[in-house]
């Protein structure tokens, strides 16, 4: 058994978890919700093991190739999926809302599927510029932050669906929307997830700057990747401040959260696929 096979199991696990969470929306069965949670926890545990194994495998390769598995696009996408499930489960411990899983776990499943099916999975030696501990800290904190934003985006979508129906005022809301958390709770999860993600993103940008400073002697050079991470930071800072005025809760906050996550994804993938930059994930 190598890490590659384990990652396939993980992908399958997240698929099952996703189906179960959606089945929960349809059936409202607590047993199914419990099953969905257990499968997610198992998927996370296996993925943790697989990431550890890949790390170990890199040190088994000849010629001093060993490094933390966070250095290329494949590894970062896998770590992103791991972070999403981790942050979701942490938020679930607090809020106990399995319907949220149906809107968050699909992000993790899509990421794993994309990584396993289309990305280059081989362990590659690091070119000199990427040999830095700062880079490892940078990737870990950025992706934990991105994952929190993914959760925020998921609940914002739920919020918009639910508030749209509520405002049409068609009596008490039944069916699937009935087991969504209340709009107040959705709004609160959105805010709390961003509050978790924002300091992580801040740490991510700072450690990235530290890395650039050690590698090239400039902590900030306005390259497209750096600039986009700052844009994301500004958007979420605007979200938080808009909230302090108390004017921007609810619908507008949900939209800002979705825009923020779109900017996050663009920063992560769009910059390399659409714009050109110096960053390493360009492949």
């Amino acid at each position, binding site marked *: 058994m190598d890490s590659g096979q384990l990652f396939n199991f993980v992908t399958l696990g997240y698929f099952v978890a996703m189906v179960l969470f959606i089945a929960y929306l349809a059936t409202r069965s607590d047993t199914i919700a419990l099953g969905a949670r257990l499968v997610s926890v198992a998927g996370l545990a296996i993925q943790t093991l697989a990431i550890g194994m890949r790390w170990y495998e890199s040190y088994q390769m000849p010629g001093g190739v060993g490094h933390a598995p966070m250095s290329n696009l494949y590894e970062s996408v896998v770590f992103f999926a791991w972070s999403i499930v981790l942050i979701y489960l942490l938020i679930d411990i607090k809020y106990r809302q399995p319907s949220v899983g149906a809107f968050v776990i699909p992000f993790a499943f899509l990421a794993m599927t994309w990584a396993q099916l289309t990305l280059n999975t081989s362990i590659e030696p690091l070119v*000199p510029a990427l*040999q830095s501990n700062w880079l490892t800290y940078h990737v870990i904190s950025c992706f934990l932050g991105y994952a929190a934003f993914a959760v925020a985006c998921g609940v914002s979508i739920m919020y918009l669906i639910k508030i749209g129906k509520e405002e049409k005022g068609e009596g008490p809301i039944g069916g699937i929307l009935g087991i969504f958390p209340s709009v107040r709770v959705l709004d609160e999860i959105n805010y709390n997830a961003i509050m978790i993600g924002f300091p992580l993103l801040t740490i991510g940008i700072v450690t990235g700057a530290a890395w650039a400073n050690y*590698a090239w*002697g400039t902590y900030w050079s306005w390259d497209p990747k750096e600039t986009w991470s700052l844009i994301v930071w500004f958007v979420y800072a605007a979200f938080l*401040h*808009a909230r302090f005025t108390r004017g921007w809760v609810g619908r507008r906050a949900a939209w800002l959260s979705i825009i923020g996550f779109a900017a996050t994804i663009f920063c992560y993938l769009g*910059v390399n696929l659409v714009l050109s930059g110096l960053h390493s994930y360009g492949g």
Partner: protein
Amino acid sequence: MNAKKTSAPDRIWDFFCSLKLTIFNLLSLSITSIIGTVIQQGGSAEEYIKEYGTANYQLFKKLQFFDMYHSWWFVGLLGLFSVNLICCSIKNFPRVWKFVVAPMLIAGDGTFKNSANKAEFSTKESAKTLTSRLAEELQKIFTKPILTEADGKQNLFAQKGIYSRFGAYMTHLSILIIMLGAVIGTVWGYKAYVNIAEGTEVSQVWPRNGNQPIDLGFSVRCDKFEVEFYQGTQRPKEYRSLLTVTENGKIVIDKQKIVVNRPLSYKGITFYQSSYGPAGTGSFEIEVTDNKSGEKLTVNPAQGKKVALPKGFAFSVDDFVPSYQSFGPAAKLHVDAPDGTHRTPFVILQNHPQFDARRGGDFSFALKGYKQPQYTGLQVAKDPGVWVVWFGCFLMIFGSMSAFFFSHRRIWIRISEEKGKTLVQMAASAHRNQPAFADKFEEFKKQIANTIDNKA
């Protein structure tokens, strides 16, 4: 609207303090920043004209889109952003400072009536003994309270996490500190580069923008440059230079190894491994055998240099390739006869030293080695502001965490005697994360109720 009453300066002041301006700033910085990620920065005029046409080029140039992060309007936005931060801090700081210097030791009737977290109990115990027991309990479950007596009523006040009120200010201050650090770096620092050939030294570097070299005040020698590859591949594993720094003829740093991500610093100037390349022509080590006498001699010619051989012959190396077909390093030579005729060139292989003996002729040659000197390319940075920036970053992380994850929590308890009964009123507040605090308050309430019931 009470806006009518405010004077013009007040309105301007309020505008610069306002959160509306903050949000406008944050969103406009986000949106305008996109321009510089779409249009290449710092390119040449020809490239831009080819890409966008002359008319657009003129327009973009006027709008400073080609170096937009240093354009007047972008720097202006950043300036507005700082002014906003400073004004809002000046405006709000006194209010927050008051929580420290003048804590609300006594809560009024309004607080006990309108607080989101409140409770009321009554008992027969005397106010005096109950107060001391409640103070003890509060110290156990929360923190040590302050007792104030007023109007014959006992007031207990306890608070925790007051520093989190300053989290936002720390964060805001940190942004200003980071900007200050960036300005210090721009004004008193520079970014430059220098190429140093192996075995040579430099005492000047070339700034990235500008053409006057900068004197370092000391000199840097490159003793050696090497590239290490991953086993059996062409993928570089490490670029390393050995650098020696001398100042006033004395060696201050001796043969220190630098690699990418591990630079060398001396007197605030830092040298980063950045590139490399061949420096000048290489030199060969060639063993020549006189086929008649069997005598051997070793020579170290540079490429193209004519080398004299016995009996009036001479030879020179015309070319070198690191890999000739699949035979490894190879050199092409020719021999000049004593009468000056140029004989047919031939190839010798480093990995097959016996090969040339089969050619026949007066001499046979064996390639023992080839040394191509390299230069190491270094980025050179002097940035006296960088520690200011790191300090700001640290403060920002610390400040934003304390702003988000901690809150200022306060509890008031008032004990009064009325009509032979003792009335206990309790109120509490948290300035952030109220739902979690409400749960906590339910616990406090139970513990206080227990304390009241279980008199000694």
